[in-house]
């Protein structure tokens, strides 16, 4: 008898817990369960991976595991990969925040500057994550890929 009462109570409690999300309307902003931010995540991972690889290559080159030529070739290859990812991340985020076309041009200019490595000559800030220098208007740290705060 006691066991049946206990079991029925437990079932009722659990049943309420399971049914509640179905009957109580969720706040629209709470509906995170279906958000597909997969592309952005993939790109961020790709960017992080490229940066980590470059760091590792630098260290391997310093330790004398790979030759100077191999290092330069591989580094360039991963730099391009990182820059491409950064560009796409920025595009995705720009779409998200619905910014104007002017800003997109800005990104274009900055990424090409990054590509040609000219940013060093402009006014600089420091990355809070790794301490490297970055161009004042850069959005990402060129050394570790961390996001930079807007001045």
């Amino acid at each position, binding site marked *: 008898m*006691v*066991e*049946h009462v*206990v*079991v029925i109570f*437990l*079932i009722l409690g*659990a049943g309420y*817990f*399971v*049914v*509640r*999300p*179905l009957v109580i309307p*969720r706040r629209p902003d709470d*509906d*995170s*369960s*279906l*958000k*597909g931010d*997969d592309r952005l*995540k*993939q790109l961020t*991972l790709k960017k992080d*991976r490229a940066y980590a*690889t470059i760091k*590792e*290559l630098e*260290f*391997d080159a*310093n*330790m*004398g*595991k*790979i*030759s100077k030529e*191999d290092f330069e070739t*591989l580094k360039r290859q991963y730099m391009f990969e990182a820059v491409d990812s950064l560009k796409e991340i920025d595009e995705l985020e720009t779409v998200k925040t619905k910014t104007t076309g002017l800003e997109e041009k800005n990104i274009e200019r900055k990424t090409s500057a990054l590509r040609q490595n000219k940013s060093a000559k402009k006014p600089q800030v420091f990355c809070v*994550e790794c301490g490297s220098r970055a161009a004042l208007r850069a*959005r990402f740290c060129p050394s570790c890929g961390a*996001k930079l*705060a*807007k001045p």
Partner: protein
Amino acid sequence: MEIEKDEPECLGGRRQIVMNEIGYYSLIIALLFSVYSGLTSVFGIKGKRGEVIASAENAAMCVFFFLTAASVALIYALVTRDFQVEYVWKYTSRSLPMSYTVAAFYGGQKGSLLFWAWILSIFSLIVILQNRKKNRDLLPYVNAVLMGTTFFFVILMVFEANPFEMLRHVPPDGRGLNPMLQNPGMIFHPPTIFLGYVGFTVPFAFSLAALITGHLGDVWIRTTRRWTIVSWAFLTAGNLLGMEWAYVELGWGGYWAWDPVENASFLPWLVGTAYLHSVMIQEKRNMLKIWNLVLILLTFLLTIFGTFITRSGLIASVHSFGQSSLGWMFLIFLAIVLAVSLILLTYRLPDLRSENHLDSFLSRESSFLYNNLLLVGIAFAVLWGPLFPMLSEAFRGVKITVGPPFFNGVIIPIALALLLLTGLCPLIAWRRTSVKKFFKKAFFPCILSVTGAVFLYLSGIGPSYAFVSFVLSIFVLTTFFLEFFDGTRTQRTLSGEGYLKSLWTLVAKNKRRYGGYIIHLGVVMAFVSFAGNHFNTEKQITLTKGESFKIEEYTIRFDALSNYPTANKKRSVIATLTVFDEDRRVATLFPEKSIYHGQDQPTSEVAIHSTLEEDLYVILAGHKKDMVTLKVLVNPLVAWLWIGGVVMGLGTVIVMFPNRRRQKKIKQRDLGVEKI
């Protein structure tokens, strides 16, 4: 112990029945919730309805709640010694110490199924809580797979192996736990191995979810990286604890006999280890996607297979519990998992083609690939062990067991190749290494290994597998040392810090790599210990009181023989032996032969004097008045296996240590500090 026959006992009895009923009902409710949760999470994601998915996740939490209730009910029955419950009667007795009484929870077949399901439900809960705000596209499918597996284990209990089954009468005492299981190993080995087994279900669930959704990038791999390494560490620890237990308890002088049950838990370890290595190539280079999926699928199937072998009673050993119909249900489950995974894999095959290719055969990727082939090669050889007796019985009606000579002959050479690869791998950089660079790096380790080989040869160790193992170990240790040394030096040049600080920064900066080296250092220690087996010596001798005899450099004197009952044992015969190491008294050993309550056969308790160099292992084989027959073994280097295990654990902790910078970042993000 007296049984109280007054009113409190009756009340206690009533309470016990209530708890038992609650336990069984909890199983049924958990079964229903697991079905509901699995199905609704799939419907929810198909119909893009967040509220349905939320309900499914809540149902998964209820599965956890009810399986916890069932586990508590079973532990309650054990602790209150409710012998009317068949399971309690079968595996405990009034004289059984409390720690083993609680451990009997997973000591028998039915309880261990409940334990499996319960751990899985805990893991499911953690997965849901971890992924409340991420991987939302994968999670419904992950949940469905986890619930499907839980469903399988619970349905086994509800219909075939109910741990709450009642006897018609109340027996005055239980049959007691198998004496061999009454060892501290019982408290640690089963839970660790189960945590390892069950843990691999999580990466498997994520891999299936990736296949179903088509999100085949490395998100699922990165999400489950920690699950994989922790499960692997538990499986490693579980296996080592099992070996230690067999060594001190079973009393045949060794820790590994290529027993089908040992093989059954070695298999998922091998394939899991291969997976652990090959996922790194997918993370770094986005390659080997199909291979990784196949490996994790195989690992999961092998954990189920391992549970099946140890828990179905197909193979006679300390692990099995007599024939039962569970075997077929396990086979059906394995077949379903295999079919579903293969169909999904074939369906996604076009999307799984690699974007990258191997740059060079002399690159770390390639060496990881060779490592994988060797590990899977060993796994195939080992799989033959448990399968062959079953196949021969099925087709010819005769059980033929494949013995240690087969395993040693096939597996030792492959394992040594693996050891060599462990040493070569750090010399090679990712992507490509020029042959010249490689030889330059390998020069010093080679010189040292050759010197070591000459030294070993001169000290009388002739050419054998053990010799090769020692030489390769020197090679691997040298490359590891150089890796740390060069790394520290480079770090010092870059940062200008002192050596110790540089070493610290080096390891902290790349915990995975250097923690990995430490884990492999443990592996090398294990190899050295395995090689020690080659030099085991064994003697059997009968001594009268006061007599002594010599084995290697030890002299053993038989001093006394005592014979008395204890609370737990009907009779316990203990010999007192004094051990001298070249005239210096080093230890007093007490090998024992006891008969436990409820048992007829005597059980031997071995006595071990362990040093870093070797173990003196003494078994009391027989006794008469003032006379003992002893079996004495000297097993060199055994202690290094256990030390290696601890080192592997330490390495795992370093690998797992959270990144302070990342932690800070996550914290900032959670607090909304990071403003861009």
